[in-house]
């Protein structure tokens, strides 16, 4: 295979892993992976959810210890590596989930562990100046406490930290999830500049277009093993990538768009005022799938949260199908009771209870419905959990597995299953397929489509243009807290949406 480069090229190999393996008890996360990464290239790493991508880069970056095999950096074997020593050697990892210290501000998070210092004392002035320079043009306030930042900003902090680290091997584990087109372009520009300076990248993504755009070589993991790859990207196509990843062809989903016009049964949202939202009127129809797009701060995400009672609204009403309009819910509990469900875009922060099992997470939002006089009906819970475990195609030995140990994409499926299990009338999904692999993504879009056909109104907030195009009936473009444009029917195209996003 082309991946195992010949000895003569060894001089160009900056990183080599040999026969690398990692197990967790009885679970094999990675086995027999041998791989060379050429210096000054962007090396794509692909694979289904749970294939072992994060595990592999976790081992390379010193986050976890391999159970077998060796890692060579610049030809020298690395022993007893930890994150600190690997960063010292120039290897930086941006993890799949934002790694943020909540009560520190943005600037301090940027400089975490790489504080400019002399004789052990942190040089605050340099730190502040450097951070300000790094954050220039990102719209992130360096003094803002990290827990007040949204998911995208938290993501960016980690990426920027690696970009400015001066490292020579930078590993990005799904960096682009929930970034919009502009951010992506900027990130790629950054990567190309650094690459020209000889920096090597390992780039993990479930988006084929990104891989095709930026990668010089790819390797594919499947079921914990290396399943293939190529060093010649010139003839690569999206279909071929999908086939490499899945081991079979990919059947892309496309929803049959419907025009709901002005039907009688409507979900009417009126006069919503909340932080970042100033919406006059918006109607949704049962059975309709509506996409919300807009730049960060445009009000799309904020409206989604306000409708669910996660951020307080000073005014606003919602009527769900023919009923009198009532005040927006004041708390998620109320929202669920009224049939409004919401999926957050940051699963780690407010999507999952990591130390609980898959089953417990799946049923968490449905507890009151699945109990009598406060006593849980375990039979019901088991059947609901089993149903959504199956439906979402969660890859795990069983429902009693702790959610923390799942791969990122599988955690996302658990989140999604939890909100769907509440059997809502209005389902609001913020980045529903974040981190989900190409194959399962189509399954998820099909499930959402199916839900809609049974009368659920679905809102998808997404920066993934392709996903929006494939799955919605109507797109609401947000700016300044309100809907500024509605796109319907045949007008919903990749091109049109991309225009809107970069405008």
């Amino acid at each position, binding site marked *: 295979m082309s991946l195992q480069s010949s000895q003569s090229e060894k001089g160009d190999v900056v990183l080599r892993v040999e026969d690398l393996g990692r197990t967790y008890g009885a*679970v094999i996360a990675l086995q027999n992976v041998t791989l060379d990464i050429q210096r000054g290239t962007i090396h794509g790493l692909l694979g289904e959810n749970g294939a072992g991508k994060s595990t592999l880069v976790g081992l390379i970056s010193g986050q976890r210890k391999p159970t077998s095999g060796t890692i060579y950096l610049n030809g020298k074997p690395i022993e007893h590596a930890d994150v600190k020593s690997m960063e010292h050697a120039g290897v930086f990892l941006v993890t799949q989930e934002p790694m943020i210290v909540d009560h520190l501000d943005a600037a301090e998070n940027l400089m975490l562990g790489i504080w400019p210092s002399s004789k052990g004392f942190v040089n605050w002035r340099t730190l502040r100046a450097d951070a300000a320079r790094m954050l220039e043009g990102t719209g992130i306030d360096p003094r803002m406490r990290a827990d007040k930042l949204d998911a995208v900003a938290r993501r960016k902090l980690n990426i920027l930290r690696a970009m400015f680290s001066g490292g020579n091997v930078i590993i990005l584990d799904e960096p682009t999830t929930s970034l919009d087109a502009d951010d992506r372009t900027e990130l790629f520009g950054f990567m190309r500049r650094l690459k020209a300076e000889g920096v090597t990248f390992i780039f993990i993504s479930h988006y084929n277009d990104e891989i095709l755009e930026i990668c010089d070589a790819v390797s594919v993991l499947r079921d914990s093993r290396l399943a293939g790859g190529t060093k010649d990207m010139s003839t690569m196509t999206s279909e071929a990538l999908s086939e490499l990843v899945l081991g079979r062809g990919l059947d892309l989903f496309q929803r049959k768009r419907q025009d709901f016009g002005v039907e009688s049964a409507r979900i009417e949202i009126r006069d919503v005022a909340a932080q970042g939202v100033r919406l006059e009127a918006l109607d949704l129809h049962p059975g309709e799938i509506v996409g919300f797009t807009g730049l960060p701060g445009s009000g799309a995400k904020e409206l989604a949260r306000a409708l669910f009672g*996660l951020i307080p609204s000073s005014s606003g009403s919602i009527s769900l199908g023919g009923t009198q309009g009532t005040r927006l819910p004041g708390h998620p509990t109320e929202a669920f009771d009224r049939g409004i469900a919401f999926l957050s875009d940051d699963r780690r922060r407010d999507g999952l209870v*990591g130390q609980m099992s898959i089953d417990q997470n799946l049923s968490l939002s449905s507890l009151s419905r699945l109990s009598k006089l*406060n006593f849980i009906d375990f039979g019901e819970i088991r059947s609901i959990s089993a149903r959504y475990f199956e439906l979402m195609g969660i890859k795990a030995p069983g429902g009693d597995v702790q959610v923390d140990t799942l791969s990122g994409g599988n955690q996302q499926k658990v989140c999604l299953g939890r909100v769907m299990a509440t059997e809502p009338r209005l389902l609001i999904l913020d980045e529903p397929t974040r981190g989900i692999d190409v194959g399962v993504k189509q399954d998820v879009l099909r499930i959402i489509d199916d839900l809609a056909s049974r009368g659920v109104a679905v809102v998808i907030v997404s920066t993934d243009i392709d996903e929006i195009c494939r799955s919605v009936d109507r797109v609401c473009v947000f700016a300044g807290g309100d809907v500024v444009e509605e796109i319907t029917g045949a007008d919903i195209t990749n091109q049109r949406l991309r225009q809107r996003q970069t405008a």
Partner: protein
Amino acid sequence: MSNSSATLSGSPPGSGKSTTGRNVLAWVLHNVVWIWLVALVVLFGLFNQFFFTVFNLQNVMVQATVLGMLGLAVALPLMVAEIDLSIPANLGFSSAIGALAYSELGLPWFLAMLVGVGVGTLIGFFNGLCITKLRMVSLIQTLAMMIILEGALLAITQGRTITNLSDGYVWIGQATVGGWPIMPVVFIAAIVVVGIMLRRTVLGRSIYAVGGNATAANSAGIRVDRVKIAAFTIAGCLAGLGGFLLASWQMAITSSQGSSYLLYAIAAPIIGGISVFGGRGNVIGVLGGVLLLTVIQVGLAIVNVPSFYVGMIGGFMIFIAVAIDAIRVRYFG
């Protein structure tokens, strides 16, 4: 998604033996409290035959009762990732109120007892309010509450010991059936009730969820504040009941009743696997922790360890239990 099961359940070739070895080790470490408990019982028994007598067993059970009520009470706030240091002080103060309701107000003993338990419950409720609605830090708020309650008890008793308790009030602490004390029955009942609450009710699930990730629990439709208040309130109620039992058993309420329990009441649930970071543990673990501490105390008293060494040796034994548990968490999660 295709052949995932092969990867997930299959073990690496030729590693079957080490996997079993690992499983045994995992099992041992998971049950370290109980194994340590059995080991100590045997050890103390070897040193002094008296340790194996029925009388001593009864003694352990009675001693474990009050500590057990306190351990359960401390466990609940810990499970929602908070802490309540005022629980032993609550026990002393609320029992004194109960006693005064009988001696000063002339209430029947049963009503007076209920007043005491009610006061304990209210204190727990109040702590919960302070921590959720006022966003006070539980460590400090309950520390202040502890100091207030200890001071209040001293003020009420004027430094004297309350001994004029009614016969009905002290009955449960003294009564025996066929020679066996019935006081431990209350503790067993409390374990069962709290255990069922944690395992089978929506509140119980919510407690684990809030302790595991409060932000996620909130987004999942759980009213985090209410769950925390409930945890503190139930803890206060258990402290009140514990106060009644202790007074009934000792037939007296000293001016510092309960305060000596503080460290043990916190150590017991943590030794038993209740995480100080919330969201983990169960009542059986608390029971194990309580029994372990009680056996150490009673055992050291029975074996002829010079009294100057008792504290130190007891401390070491607890240290070992916690260290082994830390190793378990580190290697087996």
